[in-house]
């Protein structure tokens, strides 16, 4: 299909001699939210880290197979990892602001990627990123305070602003709400829905309800295999696979 943003084909991942992913193939469309669900240890984070080549940082990790982003192979020696990562923002389970000011947290990416020419440009990017992340109004008077002084939910939105600031096309989120209360979670979910208009989003979540609320496609992983993938509505009302059914209804997987 023409509007595939990410196309994985037969992706295997090993940590040393232990295989963590088995022949994962997936077609992720542009400007959709795809949820990855599955029991702990099934390989969701591992797959997410393949997409921005973060597994490179784990010495024993070996990735093979093919992943194309915008039709370009990224599992290759020749891949320009820096430019790939500038296309892809990532948000982690635990909000991890740098030990710097709120402003600098967001300014960091655009600065090192050389996206700005002037101080005015930078301010513009920081403000608009904070606005898109739905945080600006809460922090506009304290941009010089440390990012770590914010609440957990605010820190997570700061991390989203930081991810957006480099103008990525894809945002990867690994359990972004697991440390947040229901209100902060609702705000992030609303934000994801807004971001969908401009970004392709992949989110790992342990909350079935969250996956059902925010995503259009859902992929169910089990023991390193992709068991079922389909329209979110279908997966949560009438999945095809018994394992998917057992998992999402709270039975033994």
């Amino acid at each position, binding site marked *: 299909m023409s509007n595939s943003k990410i196309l994985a084909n037969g992706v295997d991942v090993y940590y040393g001699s232990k295989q963590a992913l088995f022949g994962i193939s997936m077609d992720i469309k542009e400007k959709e939210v795809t949820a990855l669900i599955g029991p702990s240890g099934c390989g969701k984070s591992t797959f997410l880290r393949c997409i921005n080549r973060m597994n490179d940082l784990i010495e024993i990790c070996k990735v093979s197979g093919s992943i194309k982003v915008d039709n370009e192979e990224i599992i290759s020696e020749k891949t320009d990892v820096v430019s790939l990562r500038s296309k892809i923002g990532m948000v982690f389970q635990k909000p991890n602001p740098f030990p710097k000011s709120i402003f600098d947290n967001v300014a960091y990416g655009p600065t090192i990627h050389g996206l700005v020419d002037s101080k005015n440009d930078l301010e513009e990017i920081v403000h608009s990123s904070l606005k898109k992340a739905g945080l600006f109004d809460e922090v506009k008077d304290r941009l010089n305070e440390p990012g770590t002084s914010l609440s957990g939910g605010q820190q997570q939105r700061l991390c989203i602003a930081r991810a957006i600031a480099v103008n990525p096309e894809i945002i990867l989120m690994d359990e972004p709400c697991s440390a947040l209360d229901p209100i902060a979670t609702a705000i992030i979910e609303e934000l994801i829905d807004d971001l969908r208009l401009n970004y392709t989003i992949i989110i790992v979540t342990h909350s*079935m309800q969250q996956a*059902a609320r925010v995503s259009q496609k859902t992929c169910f992983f089990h023991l390193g295999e992709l068991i079922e993938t389909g329209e979110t509505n279908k997966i949560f*009302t*009438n999945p095809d696979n018994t394992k998917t*059914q057992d998992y999402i*209804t*709270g039975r*033994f997987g």
Partner: protein
Amino acid sequence: MKQEGHIVKSYDEEIRDIKNNIVDMGSLVENQLKDSLQCLKDKDTEFAEKIIENDNVIDKAYNTLDQSLVEILGKRQPMAADLRTIFSAIKINKDLERIGDHATNIAKRVAVAEIVLPEKPSRDIINMGAQVNIMISEVIKAFLEFSDQAAKKVWLMDRQIDEEYLGILRQLLTYMMEEPKRITACTSLLYMVKDLERIGDYVQNIAEDIYYAVSGEPLFDGNPDPTWEAILPKKK
């Protein structure tokens, strides 16, 4: 799809309770209809009063079950087959309550009928009622067995009911035309036969809900297959 038990055992118990309560609701309305038909047969107005009183029991059972279904939705946030089961149970419970109302209506007509009801159509109505009651008990059985095929079978039984309905209707019209002083009595019977016809429709709704809960597919998806088309009653 074969189902294991839930990791949370109390969830299994709650679902089991729901199923038992639906079955109980089913027995209540089945009895209500059986009693109403008996009281029509005996023209027993005293019994009719008791039956009318008994509708409160059905309403109460409906409310209690409805409440626990809302609670389970909120507490467990069911997914997939569980979601479909709970959602169907909500609708089935409501339809059973409505069936109870229609069954009670028959007793109400008997209670106010001071006139002699014509023999033949009364007997036909009682027979039709007995068939409707079999549908109720079969549809509850389909729910208990969680069988889409059994539900489909019950759905088809309504075809017969609709035919009976039209037959009795014609019969009553003839009676009324022949002898206008029977109009009051025949009107009472007309209402009763309509009540039974409606009950048949509610049983069909329930069969559709069961079919969906089990299979995840609607009984009709807008493209009814030709074998269905052939056996369906013609549009009136």
